[in-house]
């Protein structure tokens, strides 16, 4: 270990915890554009920090606080923002939307991501491919048997795949092209953080296409077998799947639903496989 490196370690060890993350980085001599890729920064508070120029691609950012942070110019491609768990979703989970300039960050990051390997994401990892993308959770492969249209069917998933952790929300559909977005807005919605309902085929295909283009990955809609596997959470389903989109109006925010064994929140409508939700291979 070089003398210089030892000095830097000593400086950081002696520094107070009152110093902000960016100040500590400056003292450490680490390079924001390179040294934080795939790093473990779980629990770090970025409150009020200016993160312009930081590259957090592939990093683990579980339980981080971005309140008031400036994230314009930072990269968060395939960052792991949480781990899957069953039950109520924690309120202290990493939420980039609490950043000061989140909306601006989204607007400026609708370019294609650099496609990276998924090797750093294990089963149970919760991540985003791109800022406008939904939170995805990696679910394991396995065998699933389910009933559909009076028939018993089965399917084996040989590989893990990633599926959206929450139902697609009205907020996520805000990323649609302006014409479609206005059409949805005129249809009326009181809250944007609720599962999207009455989604037309035009909207869902437009959303999938936009997402695939920005994330640089091919997103697909869930088929019945996917839904049975994801919803069952590794257990056999005791009821038939009715496959279709969500209809009517939902008022409960997605954060108030409970997750299953795979960490997937299914909005408490077990008999309906919502076909606007997305997945991607892994």
């Amino acid at each position, binding site marked *: *270990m070089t003398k210089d*490196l030892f000095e830097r370690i*000593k400086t950081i*060890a002696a520094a107070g915890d009152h110093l902000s993350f960016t100040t500590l980085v400056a003292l450490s001599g680490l390079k924001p554009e390179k040294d934080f890729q*795939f*790093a*473990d920064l779980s629990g770090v*508070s970025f409150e009020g920090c200016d993160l312009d120029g930081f590259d957090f691609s592939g990093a683990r950012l579980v339980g981080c606080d971005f309140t008031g942070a400036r994230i314009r110019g930072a990269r968060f491609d395939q960052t792991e923002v949480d781990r899957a768990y069953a039950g109520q979703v924690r309120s202290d989970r990493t939420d980039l939307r609490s950043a000061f300039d989140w909306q601006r960050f989204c607007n400026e990051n609708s370019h294609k991501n650099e496609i990276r390997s998924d090797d*750093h994401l294990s089963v149970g990892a919760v991540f985003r491919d791109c800022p406008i993308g939904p939170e995805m959770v990696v679910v394991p492969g396995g065998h699933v048997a389910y009933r559909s249209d009076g028939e018993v069917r089965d399917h084996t998933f040989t590989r893990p795949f990633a599926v959206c952790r929450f139902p697609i929300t009205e907020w996520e559909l805000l990323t649609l092209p302006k014409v479609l977005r206005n059409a949805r807005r005129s249809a009326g919605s009181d809250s944007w953080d609720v599962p999207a309902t009455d989604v037309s085929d035009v909207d869902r295909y437009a959303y999938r296409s936009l997402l695939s283009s920005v994330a640089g990955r091919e997103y697909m809609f869930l088929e019945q077998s996917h839904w049975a596997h994801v919803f069952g959470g590794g257990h056999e389903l005791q009821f038939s799947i009715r496959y279709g989109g969500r209809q009517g109006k939902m008022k409960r925010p997605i954060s108030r639903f409970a997750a299953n064994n795979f960490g997937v929140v299914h909005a408490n409508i077990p008999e309906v496989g919502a076909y606007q939700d997305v997945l991607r291979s892994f």
Partner: protein
Amino acid sequence: MGQRKLAYPVFELHLKLAYFRKDPDCLAYRKRDGSDEPRDWKTLGDDVGLKWETLRASVSGQKNEITPNLADGLAAFFGFSVDWPEWRKGTAAAFKERYRRDVLNITPVFEMAAAAWHRHLSHEANNRMASLWVGIASQGHPQELHVELACQPAEVPGQRKRFLIRRGILLAELTGAETSGLAETQAYLDAYVSRPSRFPVRIELGGRRDAQSWEFETDGVAIGNHSISPICKLVNVVSGAHAVFSFFIYSKHLEIQDDAASPVGADTEDDAVVSTDGKALGHARKAILKLLHESALGERVKGHIVLAVCELVFGEQAGGRVGHD
């Protein structure tokens, strides 16, 4: 009036015929007038006993279809069977491999297992982050590979700390060969548990056919020592092919633990750092200190830290060719 025999499809027919016409080993096996020159359509037609116009027409238009008469003629002349699954549905590469093995009797074997490289953290040989060795599983199965991987905690140079790896990826990058038998390997690996008592090691397949990967993961302790035989099978091996096996980790999967036993001759200045109460450190300082410690391992490329590499080079050995002339 005799029933007309319909042409049937053959996958990658053009490539398979090109193999008969141009491959040196195939030409040598069925020489015409002592010539090793590539066959034109006419020569090939004469060999098989059909008019060359018929032969050429049957494969023109990119239809990839062939009449049973022509297929039987080719099979009789070149010594293969039209019942081989590789003939009708297999790729040209798979057909070529079987043809070389069954008809030409050419079996690829490893000629050498070249350089193995391990990351050293100090001059002590036993302070390796990981060591890796790949070789032939047995002489009877020259295309099955055997892997020995050892991954134990290693001391951080000059610090009373140890690097601990609980998740790593073994990657096989192949040139001129592909892995095969994935389902079989998957089943084998699923059943493979090295320490069933307390800390089982999970091994999962990933990657592609030309860049296969195995992910090792454990819950509590270091990955440990593994001897897996076979870890994979290889197909479509050509002479000069090589395979590079590397064991790497992502930065975030590297843990740094305080070492209970102090290393002899530790830097006294370092004691001040070590004596800092790690639990009292904020998350940001802990994370940055960890990144600084990791920098002792050298340059990271996109978060990868390569710990060990083993490279194999393939040669080819003729097991005795049988001539038909």
